[in-house]
């Protein structure tokens, strides 16, 4: 068990280090961007004096590394600064939107992950037969279409033609759960279709790889049914690569939802980011970038840890 703890600690430490490196990149990247915030806020007619005053006020004149540590220190303690465009506290405005994004991602994942794994198992069971080809074909097709196209298709059929779900996913605080679910049905479906194929095909490939093993033959020669062989003997040994791809897709559900959120006008992180990129609101872009990076790194750490824990050789050393 000590070995596992050590490996896990190592992964977490590496993740934190990586996050620190990403924060430097985000900070440096937004500094390089052309444009003057003071000018953007005050407009073309501003006098040089007022511009200088505002720059002083915003702290833009300090050396870069001072500003970096100032920003990082704030971010670690939960203070993400104030948005330049609106003057609102970023942490407060992000909180609700982050929660919305997580809510959408969660329900998309609840549907997509088990569905992808089960479809993968079925594809292995009937490998190279028509069932396998049908599953692979449909999954590939759904991934190949751009998300916005699938999104508009869903809107066309479910919102316009049959009027089952709303075309615009408006959610607000205190909205009843049922209504909220109905509101996110279409974006969640679009996201599910976007990530399904990747996970399903990885599950299929990972299990097929294990199906070549001698222990799978042993199981068959014990008289286990084909599906029991896959479930009991092949799947547990294919779990590490499957978790990895699941985590990558979960990260995508949170970080990569920008297009879907914009299509369905869903008040999540993606839309918030797009809004403020157009306004050249650097603190918001930095904050959102940092949160996305943290989500990405965090989920990948979880995948690594799960793979370590799933390995009996590490869990039960000699």
């Amino acid at each position, binding site marked *: 068990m000590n070995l596992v703890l050590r490996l896990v600690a190592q992964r977490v430490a590496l993740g934190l280090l990586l996050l620190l490196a990403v924060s430097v990149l985000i900070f440096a990247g937004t500094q390089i961007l052309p444009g003057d915030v003071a000018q953007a806020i005050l407009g073309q007619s501003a006098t040089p004096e007022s511009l200088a005053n505002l720059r002083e006020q915003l702290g833009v004149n300090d050396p870069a590394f001072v500003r970096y540590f100032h920003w990082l220190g704030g971010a670690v303690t939960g203070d993400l600064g104030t948005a330049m465009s609106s003057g609102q506290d970023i942490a407060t405005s992000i909180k609700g939107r982050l929660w919305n994004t997580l809510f959408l991602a969660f329900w998309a994942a609840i549907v997509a992950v088990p569905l992808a794994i089960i479809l993968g198992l079925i594809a292995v069971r009937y490998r190279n037969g028509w069932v396998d080809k049908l599953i692979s074909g449909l999954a590939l097709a759904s991934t190949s279409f751009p998300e916005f196209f699938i999104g508009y298709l869903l809107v066309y059929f479910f919102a316009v033609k049959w009027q089952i779900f709303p075309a615009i996913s408006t959610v607000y605080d205190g909205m009843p759960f049922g209504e909220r679910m109905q509101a996110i049905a279409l974006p969640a479906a679009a996201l599910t279709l976007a990530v399904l194929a990747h996970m399903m095909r990885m599950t299929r490939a990972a299990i097929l790889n294990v199906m070549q093993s001698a222990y799978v033959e042993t199981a068959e020669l014990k008289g286990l049914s084909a599906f029991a062989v896959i479930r009991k003997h092949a799947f*547990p040994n294919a779990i590490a690569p499957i978790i990895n791809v699941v985590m990558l897709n979960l990260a995508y559900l949170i970080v990569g939802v920008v297009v879907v959120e914009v299509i369905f006008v869903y008040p999540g992180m993606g839309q918030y980011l797009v809004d403020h990129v157009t306004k050249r609101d650097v603190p918001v872009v930095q904050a959102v970038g940092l949160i996305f990076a943290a989500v990405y790194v965090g989920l990948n750490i979880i995948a690594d840890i799960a793979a370590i824990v799933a390995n009996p050789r590490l869990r039960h050393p000699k």
Partner: protein
Amino acid sequence: MVEVVKKGGDTLLDIRNLRIEATVYPPGESPKNIVLVHDVSLTLEKGKVLGLIGESGAGKSTIGLSSMGYGRGGVRITGGEVILNGRDILKGGKEGFRKLRGREVCYVAQSAAAAFNPAHRLMDQVVEATLLHGTATRAEAEKRAVALFKKLSLPNPETIGERFPHQVSGGQLQRVMTAMALCSEPDLIVFDEPTTALDVTTQIDVLAAIKDAIRDTHVAALYITHDLAVVAQVSDEIMVLRHGRLVEWGGTRQIIKEPRQEYTKALVSMHDIEHAEQKPGATPLLSVRNVTAAYGGGCIKVLKNVSVDIYPGQTLAVVGESGSGKSTLARAITGLLPPEQGTVTFDGRPLANRLADRPKEDLRQLQMIYQMADVAMNPRQTVGTIIGRPLELYFGIKGRERDKRVAELLDAIEMGKGFSDRYPAELSGGQKQRVCIARSLAAKPKLIICDEVTSALDPLVANGILKLLLNLQQHEKVAYLFITHDFATVRSIADSIGVMYRGEVVRYGAKSKVLMPPFDAYTGLLLSSVPEMRPGWLDEIRSSVTAGFAKMAEMSDEGISLASGH
């Protein structure tokens, strides 16, 4: 009385005119059907053991698995009947197969290390078939398993089931697999080369355990192996197969003592190579002095203070079990693993430690042949290119002159120049190894290191390779460092022998001296573990081998205490 009545011929398995086919997909050609088993019939009585013997491709595993209605890959049973317990199992369909697998017939695979699922505890796997078929409750099945662990003399029989496969040694896993097969109390067990992947000293232990278990439980068995000496110890009858056809079938004693068919005679009298030991010359060609080598930046010492000499035109055989450091010795000599201490002297001058520091001439003089001939050749080059490459590299021979030399070399390995346009994939295992030999000879080396060059080959083919190597030695005056785990090979070709154990040379000298008693503990154990062909050998030597193990355990305990004293 009951025993006498039973002897009337209580048939368990009756295979009639079995025909098995497979579809193969040769690259670039249309798929074609090949026949793996032609019209083979056999019967097996309850409680008896039938040995199936033959080289690879003889169809022995295919026949064994047919008794479970199973075919690997695209293998199909296309004719005949497999009658088990009075009914033709081929008529039962998939459901029927599932019901008999793991209940009436169980399977013990060649490599238990690969055949156990790494994700589950041993006990769960051992009782799985029993629980699946509902022949016992979990508690009963586990009790039965523990009793079997005891019978198979596994250490800690009460708790070994809690372990995962990677926590148990290869020899123990093989015994656990036997327990797994016996646990559901089947009528028949198919043993498919159960000891082939084991070291010789481990093999004897497992073999004895399997033999006892078969005797005590009265289970019938099909025992599949390519090793006649092994099968002679456990089976009542032996069936010799070749190219999917029956060659000869008879009682064990008759097959061993009075084989009728030419092929069986060849198998029985295989180790017929006579090689008179040569006296060591005045100066050695290669001299290894106090070489110590380690992996992982000095962490894992794999060679400890090794010193051996090889004389011009002679053969030093280095023998030992897996992990003894014999291949590492070759890596140290060739510079692939630079020694940490000690020197390697070749032809009177010291060799650079690292391969990269050695001049081309040193590389030419010292060639190597490997165990796996097919991965030691570029599959996209013709035999002519492969053999011609050293000619160009070392001697700058090109064009017609090169072709002439290649033809001569092909002649020397008894293959003929027609092979020069062929690709490695078109050759048999033995032919591939011959091409590798020709390639090493092309450099006109003074020393060839042969690393387990016959281990992956069928016995008769291996014999041919050994004869060829001896022949070439006489003509080319080349010296061999011959690395092997097989004492029979050592006897056939060596002039001097080094026995390795845990990175040390524990016995070294001229062949006649090394093979002459008194032996040190390890060499004695190793020698007495080599299976002999005569039936009953296993029972005779068991006590002495067990004593040998006890002695070795003592020795290694002392070794540990010595090491910790530093």
